[in-house]
């Protein structure tokens, strides 16, 4: 046991002499023999405090509250006595993944872990009941658990969980536990305050950037402005003797200045003369990339994602063919907290404090980079200043560990400047899509061909083989479109470019619903039908959730009611992350192209709504995230370099531009969908449909600023 580990262990045991863990084991997992009293999810202390562990990251999505709510619900805990603590990646490694997947990506925390979290709570509850029953000599079936107390009504006996925990920990684990009927939930479904907010408003909370260690040094870094370029040569003589500068490192892929203060490091870095080897991509620009994508639209031998009927033939038979190309650009994430990681290599032991969305990947990359055994790595949890998908990748962790390796024994905090962040992101892939529909004489759509030309996240970022050559995110919401179109062909031509791509909040659903749902409006217009009626006519009865959310949101938005002169509506719907969403926007546009958004109504059916207040916050925030991208978001390439660098030229929405957002949470039960990402999906098409209606001209590319449109407050 390392020193830090022991300290952690002692702190836990000393703070609660009679703190007992109710061992809960996931299948195929076993806790290490040196800490048998620590369990995976739940500790109950003698003073009735219940510690529930949270195994993923908190980056504002609220899961550090929602996930423990699921445990507490089945445990029949008194939520007021619950304290949430982070599980760690090193404990997960040591326990053969007792905490399962730790990644906070894909809006998956609740939907992928709800079952084992609820079972953890239920198992513990049954063990507490069994302990009480044994002590009282009564059948367990006569005992009840509620609000942290087990009681036996016939004998009027009761004991709190704190008093039962020691005995309960000795009880056998029940194999099958019954989970509560959702109608009996008392914690799940309530709008509970988030556990981390009090520490946020007082400034007590610690983000990755706030890591402070004895003797810690600060590093500023610069990678080659052309992706995948390297350092040819470096001359640091100008800054080497400057105040606070400890070392200037040429690490091949990037240069790092290490100093006693980050500002000194960053200032010195500007004056290090670096000659880059930019490789063969030093002249790449956005026009070339667009030409490449365009060629993909007509390329033969595309990879087929969906092939219902005989689309190409049906298109030939069509009375009318409607064709339209849609484009969505590369997008940087710009989390408020730039990439940051602290690494400390002491002998063969490595500690890392990283603002990571995937602590297990952090551990693995850190170990590999340092050349130490994974068992010798500790990844300390920190709050993330936003993630937005960027912090699942570990490029920055790797850089920090490389620097720490060059300065063994010294804790190094590496922080990116905003310019480094904008210019070395892993961008939401640009995507060019050709939509081709064949209508019969009655204007009914008989065939739909969707051709996608876009980079592949799975192949280039995750290095995964593509099933049938198709990137699943590139064809998101196309491959599984719910519309009743007998001939549907979706095919994909992978675009390999030098621009690194990554998961950007809502991923494929941040762009493809814009394409699909705007084109559906084009078809509605061609058929002379109302966009809502047209969708309902095209959605089969079996698409119950699509129909339901569409109708719910349309009703909430008074779809069909008369609008003031000059105000126009748009609507869109889609599934995403296992939830169903729809949106209605109302806009008016001045002759100068100033867009006023009078109303946004956005709805979600996530199956179950675990913490409705948090879901509403996610929906409100998704509108802001979406609107920044829709109006201004694009990263362009010139001379192989990203042209944008900071918030002055990569613009974000501010409070004074915030339109009125109404949220509709309409859970229909029976399934578990995500909530962090999905509601951004229907926003772009609903807004673009409203704008197109107002302009009498179809918007087929983003951002809107490129159409001469600006956002002004309604």
């Amino acid at each position, binding site marked *: 046991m390392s020193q830090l580990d022991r300290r952690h262990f002692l702190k836990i045991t000393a703070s609660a002499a009679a703190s007992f863990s109710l061992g809960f084991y996931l299948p195929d997992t076993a806790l290490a023999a040196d800490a048998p009293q620590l369990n995976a999810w739940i500790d109950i202390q003698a003073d009735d405090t219940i510690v529930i562990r949270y195994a993923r990251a908190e980056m504002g999505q609220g899961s550090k509250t929602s996930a423990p709510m699921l445990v507490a619900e089945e445990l029949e805990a008194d939520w007021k006595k619950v304290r949430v603590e982070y599980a760690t990646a090193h404990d997960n490694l040591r326990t053969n993944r007792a905490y399962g997947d730790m990644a906070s990506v894909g809006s998956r925390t609740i939907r992928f872990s709800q079952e084992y979290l609820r079972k953890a709570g239920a198992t513990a509850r049954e063990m507490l009941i069994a302990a009480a029953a044994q002590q009282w000599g009564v059948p367990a079936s006569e005992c009840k658990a509620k609000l942290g107390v087990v009681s036996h009504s016939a004998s009027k006996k009761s004991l709190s969980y704190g008093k039962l925990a020691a005995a309960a920990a000795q009880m056998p684990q029940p194999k099958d536990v019954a989970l509560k009927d959702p109608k009996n939930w008392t914690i799940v479904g309530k709008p509970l305050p988030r556990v981390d907010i009090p520490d946020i408003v007082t*400034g007590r909370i610690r983000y990755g950037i706030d890591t402070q260690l004895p003797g810690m040094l600060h590093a500023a870094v610069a990678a080659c402005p052309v992706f995948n370029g390297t350092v040819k040569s470096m001359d640091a003589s100008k800054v080497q003797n400057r105040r606070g500068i400890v070392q200037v490192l040429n690490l091949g892929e990037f240069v790092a200045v290490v100093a006693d203060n980050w*500002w000194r490091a960053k200032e010195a870095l500007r004056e290090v003369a670096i000659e880059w080897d930019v490789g063969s991509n030093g002249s790449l620009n956005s026009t070339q990339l667009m030409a490449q994508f365009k060629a993909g639209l007509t390329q033969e031998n595309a990879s087929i994602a969906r092939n219902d009927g005989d689309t190409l033939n049906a298109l030939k038979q069509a009375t009318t063919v409607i064709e339209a190309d849609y484009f969505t650009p590369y997008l940087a994430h710009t989390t*408020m907290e730039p990439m940051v990681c602290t690494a400390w290599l002491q002998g063969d032991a490595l500690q890392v404090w990283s603002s990571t969305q995937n602590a297990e990947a952090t551990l693995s990359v850190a170990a590999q980079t340092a050349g130490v055994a994974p068992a010798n790595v500790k990844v300390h949890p920190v*709050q993330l*200043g936003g993630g937005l998908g960027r912090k699942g990748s570990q490029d920055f962790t790797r850089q920090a560990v490389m620097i720490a390796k060059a300065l063994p024994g010294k804790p190094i905090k590496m922080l990116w400047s905003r310019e480094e962040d904008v210019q070395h992101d892993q961008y939401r892939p640009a995507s060019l899509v050709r939509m081709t529909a064949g209508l019969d004489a009655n204007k009914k759509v008989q065939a739909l061909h969707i051709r996608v030309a876009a980079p592949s996240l799975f192949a280039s970022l995750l290095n995964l083989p593509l099933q049938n050559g198709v990137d699943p995110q590139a064809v998101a919401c196309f491959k599984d479109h719910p519309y009743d179109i007998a001939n549907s062909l979706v095919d994909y031509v992978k675009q390999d470019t030098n621009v690194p791509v990554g998961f950007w909040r809502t991923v494929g659903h941040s762009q493809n619903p814009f394409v699909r749902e705007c084109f559906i409006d084009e078809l509605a217009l061609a058929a002379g039908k109302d966009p809502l009626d047209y969708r309902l006519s095209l959605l089969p009865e079996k698409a119950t959730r699509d129909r339901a959310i569409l109708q719910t949101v349309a009703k909430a938005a008074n779809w069909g009611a008369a609008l003031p002169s000059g105000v126009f509506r748009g609507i869109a719907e889609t599934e995403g992350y296992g939830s169903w969403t729809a949106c209605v926007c109302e806009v008016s546009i001045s002759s100068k192209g100033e867009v006023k958004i009078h109303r946004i109504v956005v709805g979600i059916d996530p199956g179950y709504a675990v913490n409705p207040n948090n879901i509403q*916050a996610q929906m409100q*925030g998704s*509108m*802001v995230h979406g609107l920044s991208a829709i109006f201004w978001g694009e990263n362009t390439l010139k001379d192989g370099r990203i042209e944008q660098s900071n918030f002055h030229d990569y613009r974000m929405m501010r409070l004074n531009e915030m339109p009125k957002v109404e949220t509709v949470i309409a859970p229909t039960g029976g399934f578990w969908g995500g909530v962090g990402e999905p509601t951004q999906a229907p926003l772009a098409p609903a807004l673009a449909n409203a704008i197109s209606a107002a302009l009498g001209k179809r918007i087929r590319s983003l951002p809107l600023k490129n159409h001469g449109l600006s956002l002004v407050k309604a």
Partner: protein
Amino acid sequence: MKLKVNGKNHELDVEAEMPLLWALRDELDIKGPKFGCGIAQCGACTVLLNGEAVRSCSYPVSAAANQSVTTIEGLAKGDKLHALQQAWIDHQVPQCGYCQGGQILTAAALLKKKPRPTDQDIDAAMGNICRCGTYARMRDAIHAAVKSGAAQ
């Protein structure tokens, strides 16, 4: 140079042009003010200087010498939260929270000047970026803090 932060006096030996943000964070270990852009665009670094909101990433520490700096850590009076902090909790404003210290301090400076701000006043004052998109709740929380009557 001398710097008074959250009522406590500090002696600093740093370059005059070092931004206040990095003097606070890396010299004094006061981590409430955050780094977001370095060019006074986002406001995550906002602190109060004699009650006025300033963007500390672009404010030389020497210009703050011998004056009173308040960071988010110093806004509460002991255990008693500032009305804005309480309203921020009541309205569950923060998401990731990274920008929120700067947002709350910006709002505090606004209330000091305009104890009953209109929506237009709030629009004009609250220019800090929040990538999570907590704007609607911030506005509600500011109005609520005013109503609570304890925003001074």
